[in-house]
Structure formats: structure tokens, C-alpha cells
């Protein structure tokens, strides 16, 4: 378990640009063990980019990211931009992170089950039999046990999303990054995912999730963050951020949702 004295993630003054477009304009946030942080914001506001910067799939142009108190070392690249100072450090830290991609990114040459055991066996070096057993339990939990031998091209959108969730969980990560994990799920399954996340939080794991479903965000999170044009516009307890936001922009965003 990550050292309790240290926050699980610290992001400080993170900036990222794509060409002329400044996507993140200085984001600072901290997540402690067992915390669930829900990030909302309009489309294109930089939510995915933020998550991708945390595990260095995108190298931020400025600012720092620390995982369990260990700062990821970057260095200036000749010709502008930065690059990892020590790729091995990133690989090591990534083993503590799990990620569910917005577009799933399941490995197309592996079956659902193989997708789930791939990283535990070949990155963490766990015995295959053990990993398989755990994977089957996870697939069962997300209701995919009967699809375990299907290839990603043979399952439905919601099934792919659940496979991606199971794949990330199988790593038993200390910090989970969820990019819209329930976008393709029906209400029942959303409830299931909610329960899974709660269990994980109780085990002391940290989660950051991007979502568009305010109800879900409010239920699942300890803290809410509203990202607007690359900046943290509002941050606080869910009841505040998703209920009575102080910022005008956030209020407008929240109020536009349809109520059922």
C-alpha cells in the first residue's frame, strides 16, 4: 500500500498544449488514499488530457506529477518540449496505475480473458493460473463471464467497456484513472460499477474519474472537480460542485442536465 503520509497523486501547475491550442492551463490537484475524485467539464475541456498526463501518455509541457510522493522526472528536450528523464521510473510507477480509456483500446489480437490477464502475467509477473482465476472472478462481477473467449470485435459497446474496466482492475492498482467508464453502460450496470468503485475506495485505493453523469458523480465521489477551458473552475464536496456550485459557469453546466 502506498505510504499513508503521502498523497496518492499530486499534480502541480500542469500545462499541456497541442500546437497552438493550450489544453491545460495550469492544473493543480491532490488525491489522497481512498479518495474518489470526479472530474466533470464540457467536451474538449481537457479532462482526458489531464488523466493522460498523470500517467505520462502525454508529456506535460509544464508542471509536475507525483505518484505516491515520487515526482516523475522530466527533462527539457532539444528543440522544445520535454521528455521522460528516466523511462524506467515511469514504467515502474505505471504498474501502480490502472486506466480505463475513453475508447477502451482493448487489444484486438487477444480475447476478453486474455486481455484481462495480459498485464498481470506479463508486467507484474503473476502466475498465469492465479491471474486467470482472478480474471474470471472480475469478469463475473462485470457480467462478462460468458464472453471471455470472444475477441473485442465480437462484443457490444457496453461489453467492451466492462472488459476495459475488468482489465484495469486486474492490475490491482493503487490509483485508478477512469475516463468516462460508464458512458456505454445501462443504468443497472452503472449501479454495478458504482458498487465496485465504492469497494475499492474502502480498500484504500484512490480513484480519479471523468464522467458526464452528474448523478453518478455525486454518488461515487468524495470530491468533485469542474474543469473549464483547461483550468480547475470549481473544486469541493460533491454536494457543492454538482449541487450548488459557486462558479457561474459551473452552475450553468450543471443546470443544463435533463432530470428524470
Amino acid at each position: 500500500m502506498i505510504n499513508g503520509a503521502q498523497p496518492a497523486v499530486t499534480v502541480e501547475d500542469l500545462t499541456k498544449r497541442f500546437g497552438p491550442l493550450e489544453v491545460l492551463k495550469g492544473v493543480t490537484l491532490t488525491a489522497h488514499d481512498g479518495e474518489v475524485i470526479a472530474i466533470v467539464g464540457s467536451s474538449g475541456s481537457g479532462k482526458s488530457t489531464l488523466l493522460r498526463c498523470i500517467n505520462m501518455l502525454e508529456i506535460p509541457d509544464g508542471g509536475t506529477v507525483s505518484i505516491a510522493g515520487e515526482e516523475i522526472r522530466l527533462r527539457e528536450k532539444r528543440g522544445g518540449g520535454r521528455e521522460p528523464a528516466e523511462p524506467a521510473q515511469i514504467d515502474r510507477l505505471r504498474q501502480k496505475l490502472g486506466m480505463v480509456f475513453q475508447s477502451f483500446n482493448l487489444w484486438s489480437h487477444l480475447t476478453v480473458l486474455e486481455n484481462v490477464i495480459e498485464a498481470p502475467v506479463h508486467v507484474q509477473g503473476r502466475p498465469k493460473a492465479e491471474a486467470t482465476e482472478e480474471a474470471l472472478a472480475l469478469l463475473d462481477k462485470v457480467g462478462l463471464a460468458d464472453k471471455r473467449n470472444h475477441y473485442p470485435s465480437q462484443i457490444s459497446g457496453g461489453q467492451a467497456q466492462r472488459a476495459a474496466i475488468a482489465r484495469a482492475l486486474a492490475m490491482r492498482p493503487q490509483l485508478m484513472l477512469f475516463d468516462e467508464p460508464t458512458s456505454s453502460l445501462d443504468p443497472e450496470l452503472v449501479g454495478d460499477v458504482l458498487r465496485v468503485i465504492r469497494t475499492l475506495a474502502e480498500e484504500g485505493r484512490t480513484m480519479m474519474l471523468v464522467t458526464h453523469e452528474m448523478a453518478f458523480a455525486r454518488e461515487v465521489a468524495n470530491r468533485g472537480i469542474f474543469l473549464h477551458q483547461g483550468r480547475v473552475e470549481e473544486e469541493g464536496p460533491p454536494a457543492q460542485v454538482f449541487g450548488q456550485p459557486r462558479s457561474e459557469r459551473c452552475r450553468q453546466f450543471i443546470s443544463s442536465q435533463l432530470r428524470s
Partner: protein
Amino acid sequence: MDFTFLGESFLRLIGGVPLTLQLAFSSIALGLCLAILLALMMQSWFRPLGWLADGFVFVFRGTPLLVQIFLIYYGLGQFRPALDEMGIWWFFRSPYYCALLALTLNTAAYGAEIVRGGLQSVPAGQIEAARAFGMSGLTLYRRIVAPIALRQALPAYGNEVILMIKATSLVSTITLMEVTGLAHKLISETFRSFEVFFVAGAIYLAINFAVTRLIELAEHRIAPDLAQANRPAEVH
């Protein structure tokens, strides 16, 4: 058709098959290792390595194999004193080793381009997913990149294998009597080029047919999901 003559020709030419196969398969095996190395060099962050690989591919892909064989064998033969001094004349003295060297370097250059193309076709998202799980280096290549790249590259690599089998016919220019060399000899004795070429063609066809089937088999083994999935071709 004179079947007796065809039979006789077949018996003569089949004597060259072991040499043909030996040269083809050793050069393909060695060449593939070198090709992978070259493709990785091309993608490496350290640019001089990339330039080196590019230069190699440029020269060996850019010139005819026949000339390469010729220059390695007859050309280096001119520098015997220097090679003697380095203690490697024993290697270049032998037409077999020279042929093997030329074939290996040649197929490595072509192979490198094929491997590079395969690597590029791996969807970025799938690599990212692997990275996000802490996969890197060899594991990333072995488990994710290579299998996906292989499926893309296999048809093109199948081409290359067959080309190499046929390319061995050029080694008769440096006195190695494989199937084509024997065929030419037989023609010069009998002047029946049609029949002899027919038999030689049939022998090559048989070898290559077997190789094609093996590659197809490999394709099915490597890409079972492609075989099962609803391929676009079947979408109406």
C-alpha cells in the same frame, strides 16, 4: 511431350534442391534477425543508429542482388591480400559463404522495410493501453506490438520468403550448382530449354507452394480473431 526426358530432367535437377533449400532457409533465418534489428534501429531515439540502418537498407534494397553477389564474391576477391591479413579470407574464399552473406544482407534490407511497415500499422491506442499498464521495452514488443505487427506484415513477408527461394537461382553465377544452375547445364547439353525450364519451374512451384501453405497456416494461427471476426469484405 517426351515424358522420359521430363523424368530424366527431374532426376537431374532434384539434385540441386538441397542446396537451394539450404541457402534459402539459412539466409532467411539470419536475415530476419538482422531485419528486426534494423527495423528497431530505424525507430530508435538515437538517430545515428537510424541513419545506419537507413543507409544499409538503401544500398541493399537499391541494387540488384546479382550485382551484390558479384561484388561480394569477385569484387572482394580482388582484395585477397588484405582479407588474408585480417584472417577472413577462408570465409570469402568459399562461394557458399559469399552467397549466404549476400542473400542474408539482401533479405535483411527488404525484411527491415516490411517489419517497419508492420510496426507502423499497430493502432496507437492499443500501444497506449499497454504503456498505461506499465508495459515497456521487450514485453511491450513481445506481447502487443509484435503479434499485431506480424499479422499485418505476414503476407508481405511471405512474398519475401518466396523471393528468396527464387533468388537462390542467382548463386549459379558464383559456381554453386543449385536447381537453376543445373537446369542451364542440362539445356546446354540438350538444347531442350522448354522441357528443362518446365521441370525447373515445376520444382520451384512445388517448393513455393509448400511455403505458401505454411505461411497461410501461420496466418490462421497468428490471427484467429481475423479469421473469426466479421471482416469488412463480408459486410454488404
